[in-house]
């Protein structure tokens, strides 16, 4: 119990309260704030402001250095295509991070689902809708397995998903026989699985259905988080699980639902992945894990839970895409791309810590 009267235990409880009362007159004193504190407060109230500013700066800086090759409609649409997977998996990751968890298995779930969809449709010859549904069900099952371990056995999400990452990845290698299904075979046997790769030409930019699918997913999850009770409960559970439970929220159900939803979103990510690369490879999407966490953290979500937004994650994914593309076009070695992304994470987490220290 939080009790303020620890040091006063010597007194009679009766006196304690009386003595407390006198000191409680000036409750709301206003103190002047320095510009830095004002910035801190502003960022505290507008958590997506930082990533939005960083993204704008990134675009300006790279446009200045690289020139039209960077800000051409063609290159910008390429960036959008590249961030599709990161963003979709990032959406799943955001849900988990909002509940003060972390999911290291998202990449493995995605690849496993893509392999199941592809193998069932092409090698086994099941109808494509059945194979697709089986892929979604696999995602849900993986999420449910993670969720069960976290909710029922009360294991830390980090450890659970570190374990299931290896488990799901091994299952993926076993089921696929470490074989890649070639793009032309997918196109012949199950073109629906590549549907999200269908290009659309728009004002000189070449987008794919996958980009719109990603934006649609972001919109839906934004709606759930901000306009439904479930969304409010997800924030509350991440913010203070005890308070949420005392307020009458079924925290176990909320947490479990979040893990299952994340699994299903990873399966949708699998669909987008097949659309993006055409083939189905058990080795694809290896970087999705860390990239998704990067997008979420750069997007302003707090790993301590209860803070963050889906729009932030979209912007975070774009920042990753912009810095990768900008550095590549500037002729910088690939290794410095990793360096830049790593630095971004550290800066983002530092900033989050600083903002959280805001004095109320």
């Amino acid at each position, binding site marked *: 119990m939080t009790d303020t009267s620890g040091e006063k235990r010597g007194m009679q409880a009766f006196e304690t309260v009386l003595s407390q009362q006198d000191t409680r007159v000036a409750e709301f004193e206003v103190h002047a704030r320095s510009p830095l504190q004002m910035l801190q407060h502003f960022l505290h109230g507008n958590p997506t402001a930082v990533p939005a500013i960083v993204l704008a700066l990134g675009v300006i800086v790279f446009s200045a250095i690289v020139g039209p090759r960077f800000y051409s409609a063609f290159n910008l649409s390429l960036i959008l295509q590249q961030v599709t997977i990161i963003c979709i998996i990032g959406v799943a990751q955001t849900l988990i991070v909002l509940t003060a968890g972390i999911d290291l298995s998202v990449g493995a779930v995605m690849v496993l689902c893509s392999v199941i969809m592809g193998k069932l449709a092409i090698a086994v010859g099941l109808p494509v809708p059945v194979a697709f549904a089986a892929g979604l069900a696999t995602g849900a099952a993986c999420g449910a397995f993670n969720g069960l371990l976290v909710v029922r056995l009360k294991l830390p999400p980090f450890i659970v998903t570190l374990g299931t990452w290896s488990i799901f990845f091994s299952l993926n290698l076993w089921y696929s026989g470490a074989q890649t299904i070639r793009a032309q075979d997918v196109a012949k046997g199950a073109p629906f699985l590549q549907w999200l790769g269908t290009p659309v030409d728009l004002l000189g930019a070449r987008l794919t259905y996958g980009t719109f699918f990603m934006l649609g997913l972001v919109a839906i999850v934004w709606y759930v988080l901000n306009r439904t009770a479930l969304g409010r*409960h997800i*924030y509350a559970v991440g913010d203070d699980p005890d*308070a949420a439970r005392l307020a009458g929220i*079924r925290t176990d159900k909320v947490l479990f639902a979040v893990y299952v939803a994340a699994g299903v979103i990873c399966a949708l990510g699998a669909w987008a992945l097949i659309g993006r690369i055409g083939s189905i490879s058990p080795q694809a999407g290896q970087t999705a894990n860390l990239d998704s966490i990067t997008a979420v953290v750069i997007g302003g979500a707090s790993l301590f839970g209860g803070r963050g937004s889906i729009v932030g994650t979209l912007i975070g994914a774009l920042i990753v895409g912009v810095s990768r593309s900008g550095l590549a076009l500037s002729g910088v070695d690939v290794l410095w791309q990793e360096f830049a992304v790593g630095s971004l994470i550290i800066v983002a987490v530092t900033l989050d810590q600083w903002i959280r220290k805001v004095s109320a």
Partner: protein
Amino acid sequence: MSTAAFSTTADNGAVRQPLIEARGLVKRYGRVTALDQADFDLYPGEILAVIGDNGAGKSSLIRALSGALVPDEGEIRFDGQKVHFRSPLDAQAAGIETVYQSLALAPGLSIADNLFLGRELRKPGMLGSVFRMLDRKKMQRMAREKLTELGLMTVQSINQPVETLSGGQRQGIAVARATAFGSRVVILDEPTAALGVKESRRVLELILDVRRRGIAVVLISHNMPHVFEIADRIHIHRLGRRLTVVKPSACTMSDAVALMTGARAPQELAA
């Protein structure tokens, strides 16, 4: 209304059934026994104060009644029926609302979100039933009304996160939530501990209001003047169990303090 109307059965001979009746509650935390065969009775429409030293087990007692804690032993009857509250949700469904000592607010959520946490209002029609859309306008309006009624509208905006409020303001939010939704019983665990003099007054008036609506109130407080001013009966808790119940009219503040600190035995004063 005289306080005599709310006295125990013994006084007027008429058998009144307690609204909440607990017998032999036990709760152990490792080697600490927070509740040690504790009994409890709350009668309809009364204000029952629960007093006791720090660590006497008052919070544990009311947490057992509100479903926040499942006792190891003992039974609880609500309206004469045996109940097993497994979670605060069960108690809420029975009409019992609680202001916990920890307040149970989600700091990152807005005032309005916190007031309606766990029982959000949805838009009428398809938007609400199919798309589950929250009626944010209505919740914000009701939240504003509720806080104004409480005299707590010193907050700048109903949409500001609770973590930007002072301790007293937060306490006000928690009290507003419980009194707005409690239909049978409102339990308050030290609701005025962080409040200023004026705000404490408002909360006391609010408690009297709640009783006027026919809702029973359990008030835990260390503030003897408050307790003696508004309580119909005083439950004195000591070392994890009910020591005795006294009537404020039949005993002085120093008597009560002597009882709860163990300086005096209860026989001489029992109501």
